[in-house]
């Protein structure tokens, strides 16, 4: 499946969850599908989506969904060790794995030879899901109804949708996101 279709499918199931979305095209694609005050779009700090999500999950009671990528998680692999040890039950870490750095011209990552789901299993993640094209009708409700931390590994096709950059300033993204969190407490 295309990444944007996968994001669309997941986004359609989300209601009140907070979302941290990885830098580059994943954020642009999510914004294009649906914008919401529950979304935090990363415009920098590649590799830190899972860490931002962990800090957030440990600081509020809402469920936190992170859209991460294979290249990004490989840059910050220690993060899954920290997540496992801190054990937040409200964190869902989704790795959209296209086996390449999609936003910089699809240079290959090592995710084609290293199974990131197996890495998460070895670290100790109890709740894991794997989806690829053979499981097209994947049921994200099942993921949302589980308690984690949850590692969701999804194989997607390389390539980006033709969507424009997000027309929001970083501070605007943050302020709106924080108001959303504060008013829900």
């Amino acid at each position, binding site marked *: 499946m295309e990444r944007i279709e996968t994001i669309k499918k997941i986004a359609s199931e989300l209601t009140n969850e907070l979302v*941290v979305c990885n830098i580059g095209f994943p954020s642009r694609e999510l914004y294009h599908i649906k914008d919401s005050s529950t979304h*935090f779009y*990363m*415009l*920098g*700090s*590649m*590799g*830190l*989506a*899972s*860490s*931002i*999500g*962990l*800090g*957030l*999950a*440990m*600081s*509020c009671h809402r469920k936190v969904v992170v859209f991460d990528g294979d290249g990004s998680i490989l840059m*910050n692999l*220690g*993060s899954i*060790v*920290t997540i496992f*040890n*801190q054990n937040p039950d409200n964190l869902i870490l989704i790795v959209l794995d296209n086996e390449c750095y999609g936003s910089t011209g699809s240079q290959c990552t090592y995710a084609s030879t290293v199974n990131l789901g197996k890495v998460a299993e070895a670290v100790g993640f109890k709740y894991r899901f794997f989806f690829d094209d053979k499981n097209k009708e994947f049921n994200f409700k099942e993921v949302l109804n589980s308690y984690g931390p949850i590692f969701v590994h999804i194989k997607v096709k390389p390539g980006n949708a033709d969507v424009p950059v997000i027309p929001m300033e*970083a*501070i605007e*993204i*943050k302020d709106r*996101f*924080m108001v959303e*969190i*504060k008013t829900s*407490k």
Partner: protein
Amino acid sequence: MDSSQAVYNALKISGINFVVSLPCVNLSKIMKMVDSDKDITHVPVTREEEGFGICAGAFMGGKNPVILMQNSGLGNSVNALASLFELYKLPVLMIMSHRGTEGEFMSAQIPMGIATPKVLDALEILYFNPKTPEEALKIIPEAWKIAETEGTPVGMLLDIKFW
């Protein structure tokens, strides 16, 4: 006053309730104090840049975050400080054991020790250099106030002689 106790007390006065840490021999006492404080969430991490990401998330979730680290870790955090903290105007207090300063016994610590203030200057990050526990107790709450008000990281460089 004991230097570690002064830093811990200052964090409490500041209302810090979320601490990310990486070990340094000079920080070990503070890490123990933080770890046994039930009002502080303590998250040991694997690398400083990861820690900054966690602090950013924690602040947005409503916490007052601090990172305890050795100055050596500043080098691998530069992009997070610029393209996350500066870009989104996020606060964090960086309590840094500053190795490679006067009294350093390990020559390997000297290059990064010298580079540290210059790296902070390049990032236009405000930092303080309290020399005594009393000074730290006074400056740390003021530094956090600045961080919170301005939405910016603020550094606290604690030299070898401070401990």
